[in-house]
C-alpha cells in the first residue's frame, strides 16, 4: 500500500504487484466449484446454461495517476467532443461542456453535452441511460398481479398514471368491464396525482430559475396531496393501488372531508404562487420567449401533454380518447400560444385548477357499489370467505401462485399523464406473464425534443427550458 502511493516508485510498484499476483496460487474452494456448476435459466425457453463466474469489469480500483488513460471519447456522438483541446476564450471558437449527469438542475441523471460559443449554445445532445434498470425486461418475469408494483416505479412522480395505463391495457385483453365506483376512484386518484406532480414541477421550476421560496411552497401543498395518498393507499409514492380489475382498496372513511380540505389548501397555495410569480419581473425575464417549440416540432418529436398544449395544440386524451368515463366530468383544456417557458407555466397552473374541478365533481357524484370487478378469474375472494370455504382458499391460492391468465393478443392503451401521453403496448401470448411490455414514456419524447428548444439559446436559458420540460428520468430510462 505504501509503495503504490509513492509517485516516483513506479517500477518498484509494478514489480510488487506482479510478484503478489504470481505468488498467490489459485485456490478453488468447494463452494466456488459448486457455484461454477450452477445453471441459469434463459427467459422464454426451457434451456439452461452454465453460469459463468467471470466478469469483464476488471479490478474495481483506481489506477495510479500516471497510468490513467485519457478520458475515452464517447463513440458515435453527433457532437465532436475533443477533451484534449486547449481552453478557448470567446473569440468565435467553440468548446464542449457537459452539463450533468450530476447537475442539480437536471432533475435526476440527465447529461447534456453542449457545444458552446461563448455563452451561446450551438448544439445539444441529451445523453440518457444512467437510470436504466431494465424494467421492461423485469415485467416479462413478473405476473400480471405483480406488474403494477413494477410500472408504478417508472414515472415516480405520476405513479397512478402508470398503474392506470397498465391496468387498462391488461383489462383490454381480459375484456372486463369495471363497476362505476372503480372508474370514479381511478379518476379521483389520477387527477390528484396530476395536481401533486404539477405542484412538484412548480416547486423545482421556481428553484431552478431562482425563486427559492417556490421550492418550499410547492412542496408544502404537495405534502397535503401525499398525505391523502398515504391515507388511501398506505404509501406516499409507488402506491400499487390501481390494479387490473379495479383498485386495491376502497376509499377511507371521511375521504370527502379530506379531499375538500385538500382542494381548499391547494387552491389557496396556487393563488399564492400566482401572486409571487405572475408579475415578478425576474420571473418574466427568465421565462418569456425562452425555449420555444413550435406545434410542428411537437408533432414531429412526439411531444404531448402540457408542452404541446402550451404551443397551441388542443389535444388532451381525456377529451379526445377518454378512459374511465372521464369525459362525463366538466373541465377545460388550457392551451397557450407562444410555446415558451412562460406558457408552459401558465398551462400547468391552469391544469391544477382544472384537475381540482374534476376532483370536486367526483366528490359530488361518487357512485356507490364495488371498487373492483367481481370476476373470479381476476379478483380474489373476500378475506372472510377464505376462513369458511375450502374452494375460496384454493381459489385465492391459485390466483396468487399462478396469477391472472390473460388471453393472447396485443393491446395499446394510453392515458393523459402530467407529462403527456403515457402509453402501454402490451403483447400477451396467453399465460400469466406479459410476453412484452413496451412503454411510451412522455419524458422520453420531451428529452428528445430538448435540442430543438435549446439550440442557439443562452446557457442560463438551458436551465429554464429543461425545468419547463419537466422530464422524470425514471420515466426516460425505465
Amino acid at each position, binding site marked *: 500500500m505504501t509503495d503504490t502511493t509513492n509517485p516516483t516508485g513506479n517500477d518498484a510498484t509494478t514489480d510488487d504487484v506482479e510478484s503478489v499476483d504470481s505468488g498467490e496460487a489459485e485456490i478453488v474452494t468447494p463452494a466456488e466449484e459448486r457455484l461454477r456448476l450452477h445453471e441459469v435459466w434463459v427467459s422464454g425457453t426451457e434451456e439452461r446454461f452454465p453460469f459463468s463466474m467471470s466478469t469483464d469489469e476488471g479490478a474495481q480500483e483506481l489506477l495510479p495517476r500516471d497510468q490513467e488513460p485519457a478520458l475515452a471519447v464517447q463513440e458515435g456522438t453527433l457532437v465532436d467532443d475533443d477533451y484534449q483541446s486547449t481552453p478557448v476564450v470567446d473569440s468565435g471558437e467553440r468548446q464542449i461542456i457537459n452539463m450533468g449527469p450530476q447537475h442539480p438542475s437536471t432533475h435526476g441523471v440527465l447529461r447534456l453535452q453542449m457545444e458552446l460559443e461563448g455563452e451561446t449554445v450551438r448544439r445539444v445532445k441529451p445523453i440518457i*441511460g444512467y437510470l436504466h434498470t431494465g424494467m421492461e*425486461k423485469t415485467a416479462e418475469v413478473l405476473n400480471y398481479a405483480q406488474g403494477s408494483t413494477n410500472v408504478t416505479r417508472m414515472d415516480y412522480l405520476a405513479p397512478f398514471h402508470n398503474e392506470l395505463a397498465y391496468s387498462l391495457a391488461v383489462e383490454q385483453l381480459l375484456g372486463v368491464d369495471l363497476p362505476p365506483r372503480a372508474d370514479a376512484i381511478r379518476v379521483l386518484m389520477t387527477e390528484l396525482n396530476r395536481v401533486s406532480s404539477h405542484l412538484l414541477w412548480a416547486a423545482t421550476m421556481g428553484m431552478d430559475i431562482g425563486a427559492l421560496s417556490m421550492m418550499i411552497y410547492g412542496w408544502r401543498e404537495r405534502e397535503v396531496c401525499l398525505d391523502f395518498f398515504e391515507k388511501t393507499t398506505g404509501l406516499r409514492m409507488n402506491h400499487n393501488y390501481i390494479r387490473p380489475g379495479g383498485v386495491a382498496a376502497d376509499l377511507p372513511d371521511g375521504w370527502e372531508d379530506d379531499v375538500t380540505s385538500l382542494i381548499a389548501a391547494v387552491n389557496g397555495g396556487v393563488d399564492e404562487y400566482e401572486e409571487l410569480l405572475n408579475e415578478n419581473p425576474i420571473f418574466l425575464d427568465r421565462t418569456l420567449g425562452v425555449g420555444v417549440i413550435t406545434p410542428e416540432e411537437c*408533432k*414531429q*418529436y*412526439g411531444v404531448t401533454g402540457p408542452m404541446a398544449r402550451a404551443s397551441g395544440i388542443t389535444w388532451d386524451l381525456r377529451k379526445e*380518447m377518454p*378512459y374511465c368515463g372521464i369525459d362525463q366530468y366538466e373541465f377545460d383544456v388550457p392551451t397557450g400560444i407562444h410555446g415558451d417557458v412562460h406558457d408552459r407555466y401558465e398551462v400547468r397552473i391552469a391544469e391544477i385548477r382544472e384537475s381540482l374541478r374534476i376532483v370536486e365533481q367526483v366528490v359530488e357524484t361518487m357512485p356507490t357499489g364495488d371498487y373492483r370487478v367481481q370476476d373470479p378469474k381476476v379478483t380474489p375472494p373476500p378475506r372472510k370467505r377464505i376462513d369458511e370455504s375450502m374452494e375460496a382458499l384454493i381459489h385465492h391460492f391459485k390466483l396468487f401462485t399462478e396469477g391472472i391468465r390473460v388471453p393472447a393478443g*396485443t393491446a395499446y392503451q394510453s392515458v393523459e399523464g402530467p407529462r403527456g401521453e403515457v402509453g402501454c403496448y402490451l403483447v400477451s401470448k396467453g399465460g400469466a406473464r406479459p410476453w412484452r411490455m413496451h412503454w*411510451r414514456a412522455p419524458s422520453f419524447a420531451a428529452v428528445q425534443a430538448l435540442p430543438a428548444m435549446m439550440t442557439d439559446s443562452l446557457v442560463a436559458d438551458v436551465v429554464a427550458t429543461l425545468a419547463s420540460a419537466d422530464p422524470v428520468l425514471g420515466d426516460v430510462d425505465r
Partner: protein
Amino acid sequence: MSDFDATVFQPEHGDEAPADAKPDSSTEALIASFPAATVEIRSYASSSVTYTAVSLPVGDWVAFAEAAKATGFDTFIDLAAVDHYTEAPRFEVALNLIDMSAKQRLIVSTRVPYDDPTVPSLTNVFAGANFYEREAYDLIGIAFPGHPDLTRILLPDEWDGHPLRKDYSIGAIPVEFKAGSVDL
C-alpha cells in the same frame, strides 16, 4: 325484433369490434393504396378505445409512413419493437401515429426475420423516430439503415447483446449456504 332479448349475444371478451367500427374514408383510401397491407380494427368496449392496426411487408414501411403523414397522421407517438422468438418472421416493429384533426390512432407494424433484422429508418419522415429507433436497436437489436446516429441509448456503449430479446439470459445470483452442502 321481439321484446324478449334474452338471446342477445354477449361476447365474453370485449375486444370484438362493433359492426360499424371502421376507419374513416381517408384512412381507408390510404390503406387501399397498399395492397399488401392487412387491416385489423381493435376496439375495446371497456375503455371506448378504437384504433386501426395495419400490418404490412417491410418493403412498404417508409412509403406507408410518408403516405400516412400526408393523409393527416402527422403526430409521431411511439415506435415499439417486439421479439416474437418462436414465430417465423421473428421481430415486429410497430409505429404509432395520431391524426389529431380526425381523432384517429393508427398502429402500423411490420415483421422482419432473425437473419436480417433490418427496417429502414423513419428519421427522415418523423424526426421523433430518432430516439425510439435507437432504443429498439439497443434493446432488441434491430438495425435501421439511414439512421444518422444508430448507437446504444440506454445501455453502455460496450454492452454485449440485446437484453429484450427472448434468448438473452437474465442471469441469476447463485445462493450460497453457509452450513451443510446442497446439491444444486
